[in-house]
């Protein structure tokens, strides 16, 4: 199990009147979410709020209380149960945003990105739709864990030269978002964690203004709380054109039963699901 220290800030920035970003963080649940809403009037604000409300609600449900519906459980076998649950939660948020945008005319066309981190006992899962970044800082290096769903990134993968000549506006043109279509396809990965690993989730208000090297530099020097403020200030000092949201979390220790035959046996039984969790905790 990971012991986590985390912090998060959302800021309207310097140019916009409304903050359409939302965030959620809970060390107990091991769940962290950044959502960047879009769409006219107040739709974007509403969409991102639905995302950060729906996912924790879904994730905190007991597995046996979840209805066994086809739409929710239609995932490939190649991912873990916890990963499936996160995808289901994103699907659930998608349905809610989509339904609201169809029912209420003033919310029509709204949508949101989502980038979420969810911890299991021995791994963390990173899932995302849209262009909100998730970075992993490990061993003094920084790595992008989210898959950026915008036109520029997808075209760069096909033909980097031609993608360079595409206009700037393509950067803000998403190819996927939550709540825009009846179904959504999130990208997901699952990794082990190590002591001192850090994860940084942010909206494009930060990633457009501050490079990954700079984010790494701040994360290495400062505590999560201070790093969040420094990063938001950097984005605002460079124009603050968009809402800025950032979550920084750090794994301060990893609890494992290292010695003793009994604890090893318990770990083993817990692993194969032999004992109910109650006995162990």
């Amino acid at each position, binding site marked *: 199990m990971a012991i986590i220290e985390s912090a998060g800030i959302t800021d309207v920035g310097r140019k916009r009147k409304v903050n359409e970003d939302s965030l959620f963080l809970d060390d107990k649940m091991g769940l962290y979410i950044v959502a960047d809403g*879009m769409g006219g009037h107040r739709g974007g604000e509403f969409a991102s709020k639905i995302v950060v409300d729906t996912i924790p609600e879904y994730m905190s449900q007991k597995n046996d209380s979840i209805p066994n519906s086809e739409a929710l459980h239609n995932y490939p076998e190649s991912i873990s149960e916890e990963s499936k649950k996160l995808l289901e939660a994103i699907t659930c948020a998608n349905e809610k945003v989509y339904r609201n945008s169809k029912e209420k005319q003033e919310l029509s066309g709204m949508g949101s990105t989502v980038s979420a981190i969810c911890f299991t006992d021995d*791994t963390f899962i990173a899932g995302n739709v849209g262009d909100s970044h998730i970075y992993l800082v490990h061993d003094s290096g920084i790595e992008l864990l989210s898959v950026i769903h915008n036109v520029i990134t997808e075209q760069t993968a096909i033909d980097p030269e031609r993608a360079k000549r595409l206009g700037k506006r393509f950067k*803000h043109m998403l*190819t996927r978002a939550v709540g825009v279509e009846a179904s959504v396809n999130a990208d997901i*990965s699952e*990794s*082990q964690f190590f002591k001192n690993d850090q994860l940084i989730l942010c909206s494009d208000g930060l990633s457009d203004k501050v490079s990954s090297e700079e984010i790494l530099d701040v994360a290495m020097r400062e505590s999560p709380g201070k790093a969040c403020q420094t990063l938001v200030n950097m984005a605002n000092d460079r124009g603050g054109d968009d809402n800025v949201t950032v979550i920084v979390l750090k794994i301060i220790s990893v609890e494992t039963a290292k010695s003793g035959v009994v604890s090893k046996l318990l770990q083993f039984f817990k*692993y*194969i699901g032999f004992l109910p969790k109650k006995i162990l905790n």
Partner: protein
Amino acid sequence: MPILTLKFKNKAIKEYRLEHGSNMTIGRRSTNDIVIENLAVSGLHAKVDSMDGGFLLTDLQSKNGTFVNEKLVTSHWLKEGETVMIGKHTVTFSYAKDELRPQEADDNATDATMVMDTTSYRDMVAKSSPEQAAPAPKTPSQVSQAPQPQPQPPSQGGNAIGVLTYLAGGTGDIELTNKIVKLGKNKANDIVISGFMVGQTAAAISNRPNGYHIGYVGGMAKPKVNGETVKESVLLKEFDVIEIGSTKFQFMYQA
């Protein structure tokens, strides 16, 4: 409210008043607000929406394209006096006298995040590629005669599938299709590795956007990559040799 003037060969045909808060469609079909009866014009060709105080022109995936100032556009914020070319017709956009116009800053509205219709965006990107958009003006027939090759969509996550090939301790190949593959002595692992020193779960390989990473989980036998012990985790390169206890694999990407 602004006025759209439909012209053919510089002769005004008709004027349309564009109300704030409404939209107008342009096309060949009679159901459009602005009807242009010409075969070079698509049934539903383009539209103009009143949005955030400005007016946004959008090409509705028309066959022969919509041009503003002789440049092919897919969406464009209309400014005073601009001329939109559709087939051989033009539509001129102008504000009424003393009318409140959107401020310069509103041009930044195109910076706002938008979602592309996934089925149409590749087409749009193809249309906006410089080979097509730069030489202007074009006659409609030239545009339609130059279909762009459709780019293949990137595969999920953009990664090729990794494969582990047994060099010792087993035979055959294992495709790494799972997002996380656990290796160890326990039968619950994806890949079971025997050996006294091998941990219940000794190592895990996770598939991330930048490639496959192998990490040490537990047990006395730490995984080695190319002879070097993995303390935490490392990114696997093609042809790396992975060793756990007496079992050996080579990592490769599927051809």
